[in-house]
């Protein structure tokens, strides 16, 4: 990176960050009762007891905006790492079974075995995500021709469909326990409490730090495994760390919002258009842009059919599917 590019990147980063802050404030101001941006700003920077709007902002609306930002950043970074390490433009947690595995594990672990307690949620999600990823990869590898982007997608669809069927059966058999999971299952930022988020927070942070630390090695891996090894990258170690990071980020996002489809696919591709192929830029920009994207999508989910609210996951899927189809046509 030469000096001009560094300045360019830094400027872009702060602009995007400013955009995210604006989206964050806008997200909070929108709702059953619109609250002016100025009031939102005051509520965050200088809250006053007894001012009703301030209470609404801080206790009711801000948590959801924070969820949106964290989940968007986590999923986008997870997708970016997966695309880089596997050199598969269609890799992302949703398509390759991590989300299905995590969702399944949460449903079964918390709902079925009654392991209540929000502290367990990220752990269950992580175990499920790992199993989902390994399952999809194993099935794809057994196919003729091995684990190609195409066999991975097919295997991901099969595993996802299978797990979803079991989830549905579990929910039908035990409707009372799972009433709360219904909305969560379609990917939603509504109705999650701050306690769940705080348990997921260390996972978000750990995942983000790990992603930034290995970004340089991921760039080398994106040029091919042998090239990376020749450049002095311990390819096995980095792949293991990357898998762990992706699992942790996916688990954190799933714990808070359920499965939000295609975020991890869309954002890294958009980011790459602007910052190129260096993961030292792709990772932080994916985090920022992804955070802004999910925040805006969640505004749309609440506003478009107001007072009815659509699940955020439905909107991200509707927006992401066309890009997915385009990528399949252009890159496979």
């Amino acid at each position: 990176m030469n000096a001009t590019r560094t300045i360019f990147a830094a400027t872009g980063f702060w602009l995007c960050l400013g955009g995210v802050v604006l989206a964050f404030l806008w997200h909070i101001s929108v709702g059953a009762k619109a609250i002016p941006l100025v009031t939102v700003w005051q509520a965050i920077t200088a809250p006053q007891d007894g001012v009703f709007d301030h209470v609404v902002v801080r206790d009711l609306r801000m948590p959801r905006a924070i969820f949106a930002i964290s989940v968007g950043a986590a999923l986008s970074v997870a997708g970016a790492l997966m695309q880089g390490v596997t050199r598969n433009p269609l890799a992302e947690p949703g398509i390759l079974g991590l989300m299905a595995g995590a969702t399944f594990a949460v449903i079964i672990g918390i709902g079925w075995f009654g392991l209540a307690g929000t502290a367990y949620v990220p752990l269950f999600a992580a175990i499920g995500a790992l199993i989902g990823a390994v399952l999809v990869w194993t099935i794809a590898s057994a196919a003729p021709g091995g684990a190609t982007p195409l066999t991975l997608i097919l295997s991901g669809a099969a595993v996802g469909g299978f797990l979803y069927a079991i989830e549905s059966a579990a929910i039908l058999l035990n409707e009372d326990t799972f009433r709360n999971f219904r909305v969560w299952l379609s990917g939603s930022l509504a109705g999650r409490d701050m306690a769940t988020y705080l348990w997921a927070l260390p996972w978000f942070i750990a995942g983000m730090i790990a992603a930034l630390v290995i970004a340089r090695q991921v760039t080398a891996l994106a040029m091919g495994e042998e090239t990376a090894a020749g450049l002095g990258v311990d390819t096995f170690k980095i792949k293991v760390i990357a898998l762990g990071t992706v699992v942790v980020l996916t688990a954190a996002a799933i714990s808070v919002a359920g499965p939000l489809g295609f975020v991890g696919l869309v954002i890294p591709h958009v980011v790459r258009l602007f910052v190129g192929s260096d993961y030292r830029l792709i990772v932080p920009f994916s985090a920022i842009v992804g955070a802004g994207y999910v925040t805006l999508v969640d505004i749309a989910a609440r506003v478009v059919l107001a007072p009815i609210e659509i699940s955020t996951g439905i909107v991200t899927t509707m927006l992401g599917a066309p890009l997915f189809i385009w990528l399949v046509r252009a890159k496979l």
Partner: protein
Amino acid sequence: MTRNSPLKATDLSVGYGDTAIIKNVNLEIAAGQITALVGPNGCGKSTLLKTFARILKPMTGHVTLQGQPITAYPTRDVATRLAILPQGPVAPEGLTVTELVAQGRFPHQTLFRQWSPGDREAVERAMHLTDLEDFANRPVHSLSGGQRQRCWLAMVLAQDTPLLLLDEPTTFLDLKVQVDLMALLSRIVHEDGRTMVLVLHELNLAAAFADRIVMMRDGEIVAEGSGSEVICPDELRAVFDLRSDVIADPETGRPVCLPRTPDHVARQALAAAAE
């Protein structure tokens, strides 16, 4: 040469699973020279090159890098001593020439010391040597095959290692581009004092540019020496099953292989009989 060989294989066997692709190879790479590995497809020359670079682990035997077992070095240290250009590398979409070449500095950087004036100098020097300055900000994808190969070469040059291993750097290039690239490699080795090991498909390129030629067949080294020592009809027949005549280049004196078809051989035999 024996004492100072920077890269040495001792009783090396390499394979996948139980099948050995390389069997009991002993080879010392000569310092400051171009060594070409030649042989028919599947003879193990690429496998040998990858084992030299520690990308593959040997089943038995070992590789010695600058006097020490290569396994004794941390991964990053290997990459500061030895650079490898794998066969047919593909650049990620959108990567510019400068960005690709800058990747060669990877082993010289750490998480907290990412870009130094030394790095910039090495990248500029590599791009100058390979004549890429005009393409600096172009995406690698938009270039021709020969230009792209020069970009990858610049990347391993920027790695600034005394040893360079290249796997079929001339494949899929036009003849003129092949010759230009080989001339460039020869210049780099002999002017910069580096050591190079090449896997080459094209026998006559090896004969024209390599200082030493190592002929392999079925995972074993069959012949080793200068071009005029190893390129002769009998060796070519033994190694490649190729009937050929070998003549000397009238200008350089280096051997040139002229492949002969069965028709030609039959006609020669007829002519001989007629006399």
